[in-house]
């Protein structure tokens, strides 16, 4: 009996110690950042117009990105969850790849595809469209890195709709779009919104691919992460200040996303 108690004590202490290390690594830097920012509440030499422009650009481009992700990503997530076909697993892995791609790799890949000499970019430039250094480039970079997050979460949402409910609806004559609109989407809605919020937070923080592909110009392609990177070399206090705003926005987004994914949250079916 005593031995068993000792064993349990040892187990719990081990758990707490190890997760303590993980916690310190994950939370301390953000905490220090907050302290740092409150210590230097006067930010000298920071043009607030630049900050406002960056915030507005970040909000604008991430909103457009979310619209694109919602419209094109939802059907893709549905197909990946519901359709049985050869290579589905491979396709699923391929569309998830941008999550683990180093930012510089993503940026170079986008340049080689959509750049002036790129695979698609060369075609576009014949029509007089140049993507690099434009707001459109920021959106493309956002969609590229954030869509996989939406797909993953949304697939969970679609998977939670049991086939039996869908089949029952089919018996009652619901097909195609009607079935999707009245049965599948309402049930999976929570997963969809959670995925969208997660993708939005990721798009807000997008840095590497944007820097390489869209460039860094105030008001046009300088989103909040790029602004932080730029002022970091000249004015660390200002960089910290902008970073705090960005973290707050991402934090709220994650909170919403998690609340939506919680199982015991009110679930409206039908």
């Amino acid at each position: 009996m005593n031995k068993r108690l000792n064993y349990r004590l040892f187990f719990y202490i081990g758990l707490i110690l190890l997760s303590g290390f993980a916690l310190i690594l994950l939370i301390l830097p953000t905490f220090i950042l907050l302290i740092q920012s409150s210590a230097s509440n006067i930010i000298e030499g920071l043009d607030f117009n630049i900050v406002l422009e960056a915030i507005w650009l970040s909000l604008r481009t991430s909103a457009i990105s979310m619209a694109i992700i919602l419209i094109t990503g939802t059907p893709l997530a549905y197909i990946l969850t519901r359709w049985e076909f050869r290579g589905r697993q491979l396709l699923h892995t391929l569309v998830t790849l941008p999550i683990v791609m180093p930012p510089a790799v993503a940026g170079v890949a986008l340049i080689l595809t959509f750049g002036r000499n790129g695979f698609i970019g060369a075609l576009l430039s014949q029509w007089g469209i140049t993507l690099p250094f434009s707001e459109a480039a920021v959106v493309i970079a956002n969609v590229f890195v954030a869509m996989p997050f939406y797909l993953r979460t949304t697939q969970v949402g679609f998977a939670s709709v049991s086939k039996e409910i869908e089949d029952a609806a089919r018996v009652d004559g619901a097909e195609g779009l009607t079935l999707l609109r009245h049965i599948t989407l309402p049930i999976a809605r929570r997963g969809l919104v959670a995925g969208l919020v997660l993708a939005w937070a990721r798009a807000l923080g997008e840095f590497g691919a944007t820097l390489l592909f869209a460039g860094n110009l105030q008001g046009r392609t300088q989103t909040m992460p790029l602004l932080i990177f730029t002022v970091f070399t000249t004015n660390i206090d200002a960089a910290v200040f902008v970073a705090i705003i960005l973290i707050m926005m991402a934090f709220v987004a994650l909170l919403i996303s998690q609340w939506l994914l919680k199982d015991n949250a009110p679930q409206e079916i039908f």
Partner: protein
Amino acid sequence: MRLMILLVVLCVAILGAYFILVPTPADIAENPQTLLVFAAASLTDAFTELGEAFSAYTSQQVQVLFNFAGSSTLATQLSNGAPADIFASADEAQMQAVIESGRVAEGSPQVFAHNQLALIVPIGNPADIQSLDDLAKNGVGLVLAAKGVPARVYTDQLLSDLSTAIGEKIYANVVSEELSVRHVVARVALNEADAGIVYQSDITADVENDIQIIALPAAMNPMAAYFIAPIADSEQQDLANQFIQFTLSEEGQTILMQYGLLPHCEEACE
């Protein structure tokens, strides 16, 4: 369960092996044969060769490690305590910033090289740039170094000699501001930008075939001065001073000149 135990053992083994086998930064610092040099991005090629030739100069095996980045980025890193033995800056302002942080002793920096600007365009010159004034044409995509980067300071000097109207149009054509002058070169070499202003030393063998140089009026071209200094808290003052002497020596200057830099004693040495 067996798999779990195997995994845990594997993790511990990897961590243990890492701590035993990989030298810590303290080991590297104690090893007198390693020198860590923070150098402006425009020095990348010249200093790499200097580092290789340094062992022969001192007739002992010295491994020179480099951290190349925009001088303003390096200055920020040094001011925040990055370990280093030498700082080579592309202008006086960034060296001064490091002096103010206490990492470089006042009076110790010396001019070791000069550089001048070059106007570059992609091969084929898509925007038909023939002079500085052409940069003001509608639709030209110009890439410059970001504010604070020495190359930008010199570029602003160069452009301030033009009429205000033309200058304004040129700045309106800027599509991206890079945090290292080498990224400006890459944008032009990749044909993503129509023109860029960089140093003459940035036109290296690697990009020679991808870009064209447009002559700048010699009288307008500012003379960039490069400063080098030992880091005050470096434990390898002797070796650091030897490297600086090597940079200033005839052999060192010859190497620098091979890479498009100008000697430090252009007038006095004759």
